[in-house]
């Protein structure tokens, strides 16, 4: 359970009074102030607020063994950008700062060589772009379905050889994969209803995802090749955005089952459901730190969207 302590509120309030010219600097100052902050309140004590600008954010992912965090942010009225934050220095970088289109849903291969994202402005609403950081070359996978086809929520397989994703293309909203060259398209789901938000266990054997094939959106597991789908959760209000813990034993996800979106964890065998957040505003987009003991997520607090980091016990 989490409630922000007054120790957090004070520096934020200070920041709120800073002028626009100092906003960029403000984010860094507050980040550094919050890192390592200690208080007697154990629950709040371990919560770290990693950003402060309050803009709409989504899809955080850890990079470089957890030393960095990347996410998407509505940084201009007509642009969603990918922001990358170094958690040690507090320095943030906007990827493609001069671009005019939208960049969605970054993902990074385990070895750091490849990264990928959804990009607008091409022949599809969002194409999948895979970048090889070794030579800077990129390939794009543009799904069938014309201008309106969309790729979202990509994830690399642990061996870095394929990318799985949510696809809006002929056949409905499904989960599919391509190889690192954007080729060898393989559908992984072909069910009724909506499928999406996949994540892969670190051993590369299992995919967790959401599907409405049985009615409402619930979590499902399937083998990496799409075989043997089995339902993990069963609630009439949606469970989405699931993320395997690094050891594969647990799954974090967003659920609206209490009427408001909160972060939950559940064991990968379906036992041990536990709610991690409890706030009247939105908690969403959980992602495990590679160390397996913390979860970053996007919290809406006082109408602002920022990235936070919380510890997760056993």
């Amino acid at each position, binding site marked *: 359970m989490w409630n922000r302590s007054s120790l957090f509120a004070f520096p934020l309030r200070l920041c*709120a*009074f*800073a*002028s*626009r010219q100092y906003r960029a600097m403000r984010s860094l100052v507050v980040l550094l102030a919050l890192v390592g902050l200690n208080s007697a309140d154990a629950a709040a004590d371990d919560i770290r607020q990693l950003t402060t600008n*309050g*803009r*709409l954010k*989504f899809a955080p992912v850890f990079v470089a063994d957890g030393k960095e965090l990347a996410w998407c942010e*509505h940084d201009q*009225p*007509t*642009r969603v950008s990918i922001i990358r934050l170094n958690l040690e220095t507090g320095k943030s970088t906007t990827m493609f700062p001069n671009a*005019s*289109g*939208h960049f969605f849903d970054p993902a990074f291969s385990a070895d750091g060589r490849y990264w990928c994202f959804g990009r*607008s*402005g091409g022949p599809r*609403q*969002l194409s999948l772009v895979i970048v090889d950081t070794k030579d800077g070359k990129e390939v794009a996978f543009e799904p069938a*379905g014309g201008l*309106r*086809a*969309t790729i*979202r*929520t990509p994830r690399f397989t642990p061996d870095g050889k394929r990318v799985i994703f*949510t696809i*809006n*293309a*002929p*056949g*409905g*909203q*499904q989960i599919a994969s391509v190889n690192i060259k954007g080729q060898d398209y393989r559908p992984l789901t072909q069910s*009724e*209803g*909506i499928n*999406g938000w996949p994540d892969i266990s670190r051993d590369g054997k299992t995919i967790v995802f959401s599907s*409405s094939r049985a*009615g*409402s*959106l619930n979590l499902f597991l399937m083998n990496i090749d799409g075989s043997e789908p089995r339902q993990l959760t069963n609630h*009439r*209000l*949606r469970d*989405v955005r699931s993320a395997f813990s690094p050891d594969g034993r647990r799954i974090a996800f967003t659920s*609206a089952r209490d*009427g*408001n*979106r909160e972060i939950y964890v559940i064991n990968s065998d379906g036992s041990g459901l536990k709610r991690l957040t409890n706030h009247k505003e*939105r908690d969403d987009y959980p992602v495990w730190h590679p160390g397996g003991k913390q979860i970053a997520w996007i919290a*809406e607090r*006082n*109408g*602002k*969207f920022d990235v936070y980091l919380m510890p997760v016990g056993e």
Partner: protein
Amino acid sequence: MFDIGSFSSRDCSGISRRAFLQAGAALPFAGGLSALGQEKGGNPPRAKSVMLIWLGGGPSHLDLFDPKPKALAQYRGPFSAIQTRTPELLVSELLPNLAQRSHLYSVVQSNINYQGGHRPAGSIAMTGTRPTDGGEDRGGKVDGYGPSIGSILAKHRQSKSLPGFISLARGPVGDGVGPNIGQGGGKWGKAHDPFMLSCNEEGDVSIPKLKLLEGLSPARLADRKTMLRELDQLRRSIDSKPFRVWDGVYDQAIGLLTSSEATRVFDLSRETEKTRQAFGRTAFGQSCLLGRRLVEAEVPYVQVNWSRYVEVLFPFSDYGWDTHSDNFGLLADWHGPLLDRVLSALLDDLHERGLLDSTLVVCMGEFGRTPKINSIGSRDHWHQCYFSVWAGGGVKPGLVVGASDAQGEFPARDPVTPAMVGTTILDLAGMGTAARAEMRVLEGGHVIDALL
């Protein structure tokens, strides 16, 4: 484009940032300030002001205010329906806060439109009239439509200080092809177009067609003589022909720049932090808050636009409701939660301030989306049946008016036409049959009796 400056709210430190108005030669949307005078004859208005919350792009009725939990999977979609405080009303699970506030509003579930393209459907919805020349998609012109509802009410009311029809967006609303040509005065001319203001997520207010005039400071702007001198210099630097076009705007811009009321109304930092937080730090949220301030200032008609463009993810677009692809991902990410938060905050705020009874809030788009999920797992345009939300200003709350059929494809009863929407808004705002006839607008229109 002629720069005069733009307004901006103070930041939270209380330090005024450079904030000016900037008027452009191509300023088609700048009616209002010259419309001084007294309200013409008509009914005593139950709605002193109207707020149209415009969800451009076509919000999915099945995924918001008209869920079909018993429909086939290819219609129903992945979102569950939840019960509201209104026994007859279910809404999507994306709207939990609005579900708790259904005693404040009513929902029409049987709106219809006549065209399936964004711009003509938008123009039809905003004017209540069908184009006489085919509309935007068939080469129609501005005067093919009647004046928009906002333009009609502004003309009727003759606002005394602020413009009578203010539209909040980054520019004229429409799609990537162009603006809805029915969003303004139509055959009455540009003088009756809405005055456009833009409000960003920080609450900074500017005039979209206007840009900053370098070198002007708020202090200089406050000095009318200084500003006039600046503008005179500007005037000498331009051709007389475009300036004549701009002349009315020039007066309006000066009026706004030197109006203490305008600067007060546009300054969102005068709100408590709690109020600003309630609306959320998004452009749509702060725009709705600005809209409420405009209502307090007795602006007769305020249109708050969700976005300027209907499109969601093309490079120019700003996350409109045209979710041909990834409808369910996008609605779960942004559209549903933002609408739920902001519309709830607006209704709460108006209610708590005692303004809801005298303010008519109408929330709708130009149409809905296909009840049957399309081949790529999303929803396309659907003008045969959609929803609108009505609150305050003489509307009975807690009602469901009309009904769609089992799949949400067509009205099962009581279809509500754009003319009925326009007529009802005007009637509640004090323009009854006689006043509309006198102005030759929406003559013969019917009010949605069940709402009143």
